[in-house]
């Protein structure tokens, strides 16, 4: 890893000018104790500290990383087993369902075949059947409608029908006359 930062090296001049301007506004151009504070020489204590930190990083690399990866694997193992088990169970269930569907379809086909074999052949063609007599109607309605209209009252129960004369003006409170048959 390199310490050289391209973002800092390739900083545009406008940013540098802005920084200088801000330093001027803050009054840092005249008194700059921070410059001397940050220009630290690598003292023996700092060098020793840097090496210790490097060793610590190395130690952590050797221990913590492996331990964490093993722990991650161990934690993920039950989930993987459950997922695999559920997947296998699902596949077996689907196989069973497919077999059942095939059996049912086969049985239905067999039943249809047997029903077709037992059914007698049609005696005469449909064209030979006698057609119903179409009576002429006064209002010119189709005969089929008349037939249906006549056939319908047969099934109806007998009921009393009271014809009512409707007045031209719709008045629910007005008395109504009832004709007796």
């Amino acid at each position, binding site marked *: 890893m390199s*310490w050289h930062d391209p973002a800092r090296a390739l900083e545009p001049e406008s940013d540098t000018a802005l920084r200088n301007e801000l330093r001027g506004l803050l*009054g840092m151009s005249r008194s700059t104790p921070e410059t001397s504070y940050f220009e630290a020489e690598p003292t023996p204590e700092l060098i020793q500290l*840097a090496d210790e930190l*490097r060793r610590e990083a190395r130690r952590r690399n050797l221990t913590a990383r492996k331990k964490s990866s093993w722990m991650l694997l161990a934690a993920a193992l039950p989930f993987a087993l459950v997922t695999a088990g559920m997947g296998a169970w699902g596949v077996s269930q689907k196989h069973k369902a497919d077999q059942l569907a095939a059996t049912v379809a086969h049985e239905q086909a067999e039943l249809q075949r047997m029903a077709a074999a037992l059914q007698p052949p049609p005696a005469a063609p449909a064209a030979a059947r006698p057609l119903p007599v179409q009576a002429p109607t006064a209002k010119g309605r189709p005969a089929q409608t008349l037939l249906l209209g006549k056939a319908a009252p047969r099934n109806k129960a007998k009921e009393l029908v009271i014809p009512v004369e409707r007045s031209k003006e719709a008045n629910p409170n007005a008395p109504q006359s009832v004709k007796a048959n």
Partner: protein
Amino acid sequence: MEPLKTQTIPFGDSHEFHDIFASLYPRLVSYARRYGATYPEDIAQEAFVILMQRDSPVEHPTAYLYGTVRTLSLTERRPLKNQSISLEAVVEPGKGPDADEDLLSQEVRERMKALSPTFRETLWLFVVEDLSIRQISEILDIPEATVKTRIHRAKAHLRNQLNSSGGLHVLA
């Protein structure tokens, strides 16, 4: 037990690392102190270890270190887990304001204090820590445009501040 070899860490040669460490370590300690960290040295050292511990290289190591120090300092100061803490409350209390005393003059400190914490933080990184806008955006985890906006607003605040006190004429 065999001593661990420091050369196995892919982090440049020793001389380069020692130089960079010597220049960055005091800055990071100071930065952690600004956030009111109780143990700023520990936080700065931990940031270095975390950086060197990484398997994959970091594009901007300096920004990564600053960002790690910021996160660790905020975490250390957090009173309870899962409780957010405002920047206003973080930068000011504790040793935060005193951290500037060794670095900046009284005049600069007063002008910095007049800014809001958000602008002050960005301005500090840009002017005092001498970091680029790209690095600041990585540290604060905000877009570069936001960093620029904050810097320009801080500049406007400083100008107004100087105009009202007549300081701009003195500077001119």
